[in-house]
């Protein structure tokens, strides 16, 4: 369960303080399928970084399964990310000239306590099969299409059996057909494995796949406000 209490983030640019998040309170239950939408500059990327424990907030509390993440140091956050959170990125971020299988296995190497190599491999093969790429598992990213690359990335995000999947514009670099495939995959994961899926997007069609849309406007949450309205607000 994710709970944010009056979370703020202020960037310091020279002498200026730039408040990006202005007090966000939010609750995402386990097993939810959520989209985080908003125009660029609304702070959704910042919120996503905070949710992904990549950054620490300037104020407020972030409770992940009841633990206050804001108080963790860099190493502890790394452990937490490794264990609890899977990341999917817009530009896939696969290691170049490295096979799909190796890419999927990579996050498991940073597990603590260590996982035995053959167990990692078995799990990676299972995931590759699940995303339907068993014939291409020895191909490098350059030999895969965008959709296939994103499927490898999804398999990679699942290697450590995380509770939360954070996807940052997962369909941003894909055509509409593959976008639908990828979003269906997220939905299946959410439905079948009960993983909390949070998708950051500015695309309404993508957001429409999710059960709940959290709309961000100018560093605050405008939940429940319809897409049209939020679009107008930004204008």
């Amino acid at each position, binding site marked *: 369960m994710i709970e944010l209490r009056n979370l703020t983030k202020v960037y310091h640019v020279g002498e200026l303080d730039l408040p990006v998040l202005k007090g966000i309170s939010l609750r995402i239950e386990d097993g939810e399928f959520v989209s985080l939408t908003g125009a660029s500059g609304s702070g959704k990327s910042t919120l996503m970084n905070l949710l992904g424990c990549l950054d620490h907030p300037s104020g407020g509390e972030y409770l992940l399964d009841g633990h206050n993440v804001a108080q963790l140091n860099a190493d502890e956050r790394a452990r937490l990310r490794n264990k609890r959170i899977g990341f999917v990125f817009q530009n896939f*971020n696969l290691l170049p000239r490295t096979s799909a299988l190796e890419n999927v296995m990579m996050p498991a190497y*940073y597990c603590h306590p260590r996982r035995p190599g053959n167990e990692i491999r078995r799990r990676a093969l299972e995931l590759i099969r699940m995303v339907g790429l068993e014939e291409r598992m020895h191909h490098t990213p350059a030999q895969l299409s965008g959709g296939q690359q994103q499927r490898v990335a999804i398999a990679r995000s699942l290697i450590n059996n995380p509770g939360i999947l954070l996807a940052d514009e997962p369909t941003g670099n894909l055509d509409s057909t593959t976008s639908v495939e990828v979003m269906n995959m997220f939905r299946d994961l959410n439905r079948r494995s009960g993983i909390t899926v949070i998708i950051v997007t500015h695309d309404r069609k993508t957001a429409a796949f999710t059960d709940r849309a959290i709309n961000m406007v100018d560093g605050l949450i405008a939940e429940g406000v319809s897409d049209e309205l939020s679009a107008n607000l930004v204008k």
Partner: protein
Amino acid sequence: MNLAQLLLTCLLALVRNPMRAALTVLGIVIGIAAVVAIMEIGKGSSQQIRQSIASLGANTVNVMGASVRTNGVASGMGGRASLFASDAQVIMSECRNTVELASPVVRTSGQIIVGNTNWSPNSIIGGNEHYLAIEGWEVAQGSPFSAEQVNNSARVCLIGNTIATKLFAGKDPIGQEVRIKDVVFNIIGVLAPKGADMMGNDKDDCLILPWTSIRTRLAGAGGTAAIGKAGASNSTSSVSSTDTFSTSAVSFYPGCDVQPYTNAPHPLRTRTVDSLIVRIRDSENANPAMDEMTTALRRAHRLEPGVLDDFELRDRAQFSKMVTGTSETMSNLLLAVALISLIVGGVGIMNIMMVSVTERTREIGLRMAVGARPRDIMFQFLTEAVLLCLAGGVLGIIIGHVSSGVVSSMFGWPIATSPGAMMLSVTVAAGIGIIFGWYPAFKASRLDPIDALHHE
């Protein structure tokens, strides 16, 4: 991440760009190859120099009588007839740990006659049965004289190569007779040629006799240091003419209770010797041996504490050290140059690792996002640098070893393989990897995962 996974990750990262990895490693390969080749060649040549110096008799110490001052006129070194043949025995029995062999040395000069030819050899030297071993002489033909022949003042001699060729051109000298100062000696052996000594004198132009034979049979010729220059009135007057041709056994090693410098009528000429030559065990450091010998000789000569030594030690090992030192200095100089090339190689590694960190910023960001701690990133890049350097080191050792072999077969230079140098090279290579890989690795570990992920 365990070691196997770390190594695998690093190897995969390196193999992703094989050409670059190869070029990066080239600097280290050249550096290590140069170091190994120079070490092998340098070691080979100093070994050879040491051997040739040892054959010149460099791991020896000379014992001379001290100088003597008569009416204000000082004689040179060895002016005092203070050394006895027994001192050689004393040194050998009391300094067993540091001294291998010791022999008395007496010298004379004069004409030798063979048949109708004559010759004045450079030196006529007398020693005991160990003398040849101490000086590093080998007998090419015939046999050396024995301890018994020394005790009996046998009329035998060994001749140097020059004399063998001058007086016996073509003929076999063994068993022939040679007259030295009208005393007939039997040639029992010919020495292997040695060439010129450090001063340019022909070492082969010599005769070697039992020292007793010189002292008893060629006594009138004993015009060398101990007796001739001494100026001490007692050294010549006590010799009776019967001594000269005496064949009866004389006690050449009188007991230690004999007090030197008394006017007692000892057959001094047969007891005192010009000098002693001692072969020490450690040719690099003669000091312990010399200290021990000093103690032993002082005790044998019954010198009270505070009385100056009546002998002096001269260390020929010094010379060997100097010459070996010269060759070592040269190879150390070359080694320094090779080490500089190694540093240049290290800078190359650092340069490429920096480029690699920048180029792989997104990868670093990703690894951090999925749970790599800063120290994991640091270890990864450090390991990559060390792996590169180790690969370069191993390749460099092979190339260096092969090229020193090629050089040795082309120019005939001596080489000496040294596993120590190879181990050292590998260590140095790994060290360079750590030193020059550290900063890029540190930089990589300091990246912010958010910035790194969005790096273009």
